[in-house]
């Protein structure tokens, strides 16, 4: 188990989870994995995986149904977004506004970043691009006054939500943190959402804690999840501040926002190539009997076409191939990629059309046999050739590496 925990520690640190959170997390996992509630049917490896997953999902706020955004008794409900510079507040405002509008609300965008050059203009353009109403002004005056005006305007015009786009600020900038507190006092937001960049490192906890100390955060919006950062910041912030992640930003388009999914995030943090999930699925699919047979034949350095076919079947049983391949570290599928499960079925059919002798020793499969096999399996000679090539490659890999299938094997197996 120590080896497994070391791997998990490294995975979490590589995902930018705060080192303090990692320390506490591992202590808890160790305790639980050794605890009394051990399930007989699970191997030690599975035990650890299960505990790690459960703990991660729990910390990320899993289980509890996602709370809808609060509504003030006296409209409009003000949702104030705050965060560091460049975390994605304005872009998020556009997306959140659109999302709210789709669910039947009437949001008004209120830019109160009077700090950065052209920030008000940016908010106006983002709002327009997302088809949202915006409280326009020339960017002068004080943010508190502008926020009050926007709320008054919303009340008069019948908007039920005001999305307050505040200036990016560093948590150590006392003057601007005072301003944020003043904004909150002036407009009493129903939700104060902290916008955090998913790429943030160890500093995520320090800044989120500092914001929380000044204004009562009610949620986190994690942005830039369309990048390839593992997003350990989500875990750090949720674990240390106790503020749940509510939404995730997943692209630059106005509709690229979704309600946060703790289960998926847990998988991502542990490695986009969700190694643990792959092990788990593999363990589910490979029944003990065929695993034993496979191991025996491997010991004897025999990897015949029958074993190859069994492996194909196992892979097919592991679920939609996209999801299996998606779990392999380092392999990324284009968004529209589809792995044709029929292809694996065809590969199986080819092996099925061989004689027992051919399956035992592929060397006897000459040209005319290839033609026969192609006819018998309803495929082409090229496909038979390709399968034999894949088989040989896989056999080589198995002989080199032993029984556990690696990413290279799976990738080659599927011809990618």
């Amino acid at each position, binding site marked *: 188990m120590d080896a497994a925990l070391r791997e998990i520690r*490294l995975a979490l*640190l*590589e*995902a*930018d989870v705060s*080192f303090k959170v990692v*320390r506490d997390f591992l202590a808890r996992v160790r305790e639980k994995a050794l605890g009394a509630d051990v399930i007989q049917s699970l191997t030690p490896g599975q035990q650890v995986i299960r505990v790690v997953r459960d703990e991660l999902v729990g910390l990320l706020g899993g289980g509890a149904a996602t709370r809808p955004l609060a509504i003030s008794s006296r409209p409009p409900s003000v949702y104030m977004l705050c965060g*560091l*510079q*460049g*975390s*994605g507040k*304005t*872009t998020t405002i556009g997306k959140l506004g659109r999302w709210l509008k789709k669910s039947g609300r009437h949001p008004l965008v209120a830019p109160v970043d009077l*700090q*950065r*050059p*052209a*920030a008000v*203009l*940016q*908010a*106006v*353009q*983002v709002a327009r*691009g997302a088809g949202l109403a915006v409280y326009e002004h020339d960017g002068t005056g004080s943010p508190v006054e502008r926020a009050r005006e926007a709320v008054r305007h919303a009340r008069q015009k019948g908007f039920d939500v005001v999305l307050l786009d505040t200036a990016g600020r*560093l*948590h*150590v900038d006392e003057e601007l943190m005072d301003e944020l507190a003043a904004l909150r006092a002036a407009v009493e937001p129903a939700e104060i959402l902290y916008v955090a*960049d998913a*790429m*943030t*490192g*160890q*500093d*995520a906890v*320090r*800044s989120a804690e500092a914001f929380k100390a000044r204004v009562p955060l009610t949620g986190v919006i994690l942005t*830039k999840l*369309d*990048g*390839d*950062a*593992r997003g*350990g*910041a989500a875990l750090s912030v949720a674990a240390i501040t106790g503020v749940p992640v509510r939404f995730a930003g997943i692209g*630059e388009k106005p509709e690229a926002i979704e309600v946060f999914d703790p289960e998926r995030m847990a998988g991502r943090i542990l490695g986009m190539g969700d190694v643990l999930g792959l092990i788990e699925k593999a363990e589910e699919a490979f029944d003990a009997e065929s695993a034993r047979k496979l191991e025996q034949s491997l010991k004897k350095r025999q990897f015949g076409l029958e074993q190859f076919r069994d492996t194909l079947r196992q892979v097919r049983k592991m679920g939609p191939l996209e999801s299996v391949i998606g779990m392999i570290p380092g392999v*990324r599928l284009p968004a529209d990629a589809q792995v044709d499960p029929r292809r694996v079925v065809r590969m199986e059919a080819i092996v099925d059309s061989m004689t027992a002798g051919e399956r035992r020793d592929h060397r006897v499969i000459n040209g005319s046999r290839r033609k026969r096999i192609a006819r018998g399996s309803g495929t082409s000679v090229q496909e038979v050739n390709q399968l034999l090539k894949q088989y040989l490659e896989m056999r080589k890999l198995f002989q080199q590496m032993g029984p556990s299938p690696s990413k290279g094997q799976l990738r080659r197996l599927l011809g990618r």
Partner: protein
Amino acid sequence: MFGRLRQKIVDGLRKTRDAIAGQVERIASAGRPVDDALLDELEEALLSADLGPELAAELRDRLGQRLRGEAVGGPDQVLGVLREEILALLPPRVPETRPTAPPRVTLVVGVNGSGKTTTAGKLAALWGREGRKVVVAAADTFRAAAVEQMAIWAERSGAEVVRSQPGADPAAVAFDAARAARARHADELLVDTAGRLHNKKPLMDELAKIARVIAKEIPGAPHETLLVLDGTTGRNAVIQAREFTRVAPVSGLVLTKLDGTARGGVAVAIGRELGIPVRYVGVGEAADDLLLFEAEEYVAGLLAPPGTKGE
């Protein structure tokens, strides 16, 4: 006397309890034996600065090699060893590339929200103060109001802006700007580009095209390509550096937002892996809040004890 970089970093550090030095002070009390327990704690202190697990483990080993078997002489001793080891990891300073004939072209690239436009604005101001004639290409035609933001910065520093319609081809803007810079005998051409996540291939291809198009008009350009990294970014910054280096000739890093509590330790890992030096550090929103990177100052700031008065 403290330099301004060190001051700024120290100012940010003062506000956090888990600065490396503060932790080392708690951990490495004089007389404590140098054993695994001590080294484990020091490794965690290093992790807090975003140096990453690999580098933290490596520094732990180096500390172990140099100190093991002795009793700790005190926090200063440990900090001294760390200082030497971290400095040794940073790539040597490389002089900036200057073309034989002006204009020198600087391309500013990075992911969304890292601080490209602000950095470009500060660079324009810096060069303006030095009396250099600057042309700025507002080639972020994608983000709302990015062109206006760049134009305001340029106006403040007296630089000329070449701009186009929102949604225009950024390579065309860069090309026009290159022409304009030559025609007006500018010393510097600064090209601000849109933020792009490094895993989006079409956007990365677009960046490669911008670099190509500039080179067509001004041979040898871009002379400098600055990758702007948000100093609060964690491990992902290494991947960013790797990917941007593939499509553009990245010659230096700009580490932004170091006036907070983030230390930007990931830059050390990047320097180690890719040999790309840090050129500038962003420490605020004012025009003069861009400082030349000094390795000694940076490491001193990184390891300054909490409570140190920066200014």
